[in-house]
């Protein structure tokens, strides 16, 4: 279509470069937010909440005497602080989400536009130049998309942060059901700190990591085979060679070679492990990496990989 406008290759390339410069800023102005607009002026709200954070209202609490006077002030401070933390967390959440989506949208579109021009316009030289520009843009975006992990992970992190905050909030709400004499402001501050920190990325990562470790351990402890495997002779024979070799080392009580094999595979052997300990580690590993595969092709592939690593020890 553009070729019909009879733009010279030079002008076309200049236009493309201009597009590279301008379009990202256009799209960057309107990233995919994923959140509705907030009619509240949260900056003003935070300003109004300042007395609950800077000690002004706390001084009133300290000066008050008895549950009847202290409890309502405590509650006001706690709720105000929760409100403040919620506003900050919402901002944090939005910025994380927007950063993971906004940049890619703009550069993807520019890349696609340039790619489209490359395919449809000009002579070979023009196409080559446009193609290079397109690669430049998409290349930059590829660098961003190396953070695809971030894009995908951020959703899990946000969910975990929400869960951590909800959990931390329970203690606070339970405390507020008690009179000040049983749950005073300074106890509440401790729970408020936990609530504030529950919305952090390190907190979320920590829980997710622990959960993954638990699941991993569960998987090792209860490995599931869905059916009796009718192993092909290729799998069965190779597996038998490997296990016979390992059992031969066990018979010789050769902890050194067993340990070297485990290390070659990438398994860590705790200091002081006996030859039987190491054999157990190897057996569990082989079971998980080979036997748990559902297809014979996958088992063969796993055996092939293992055969390369263990070649210095045994050929199978």
């Amino acid at each position, binding site marked *: 279509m553009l070729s019909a406008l009879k733009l010279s290759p030079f002008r076309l390339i200049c236009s493309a470069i201009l597009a590279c410069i301008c379009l990202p800023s256009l799209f960057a102005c309107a990233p995919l937010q994923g959140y509705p607009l907030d009619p509240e002026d949260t900056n003003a709200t935070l300003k109004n909440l300042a007395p609950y954070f800077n000690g002004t209202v706390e001084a009133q609490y300290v000066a008050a005497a008895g549950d009847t006077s202290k409890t309502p002030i405590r509650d006001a401070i706690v709720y105000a602080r929760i409100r403040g933390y919620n506003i900050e967390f919402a901002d944090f959440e939005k910025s994380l989400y927007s950063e993971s989506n906004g940049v890619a949208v703009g550069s993807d579109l520019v890349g696609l536009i340039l790619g489209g021009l490359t395919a449809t316009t000009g002579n070979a030289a023009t196409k080559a130049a446009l193609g290079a520009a397109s690669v430049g843009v998409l290349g930059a975006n590829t660098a961003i998309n190396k953070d695809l992990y971030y894009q995908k992970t951020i959703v899990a992190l946000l969910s975990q942060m929400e869960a951590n905050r909800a959990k931390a909030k329970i203690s606070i709400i339970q405390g507020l059901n008690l009179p000040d004499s049983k749950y005073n402001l300074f106890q509440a501050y401790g729970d408020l700190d936990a609530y504030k920190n529950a919305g952090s990325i390190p907190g979320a990562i920590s829980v997710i990591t622990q959960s993954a470790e638990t699941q991993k351990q569960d998987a*090792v402890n209860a490995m599931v085979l869905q059916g*009796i495997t009718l192993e092909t002779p290729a799998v069965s024979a190779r597996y038998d060679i490997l296990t016979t070799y390992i059992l031969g080392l*066990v018979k010789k009580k050769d902890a050194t070679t067993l340990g070297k094999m485990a290390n070659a595979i990438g398994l860590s052997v705790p200091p002081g492990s006996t030859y039987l300990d190491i054999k157990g580690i190897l*057996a569990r590993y082989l079971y998980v990496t080979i*036997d748990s595969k559902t297809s014979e092709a996958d088992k063969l592939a796993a055996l092939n990989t293992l055969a390369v690593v263990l070649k210095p020890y045994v050929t199978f």
Partner: protein
Amino acid sequence: MTIVEADPSYTVDQLNAFVTQSEKRLMGPLTAIGNNTNGKTTLTIDERAPSNPTPPSKITTGQLPVGATKIGDGRVYISGTLTDAIAYKT
């Protein structure tokens, strides 16, 4: 110890084939049988033992064969039904 889950639909013969395979692959003997809340038969294999038994361990829903050594007993799924069974070695 490694706990292996077996399909509840197995017949006794299939379960025994599964026991043989599991002992061979984990290079250790069967030490216990049972079932779990997932509705599966469980086989506990000692992967730290010096070797898997030859001949392999067996499971029966009948009497312990003469001359066999009992490993343990438990309720396992046989053709989908929880059944009393004995694990043994010869």
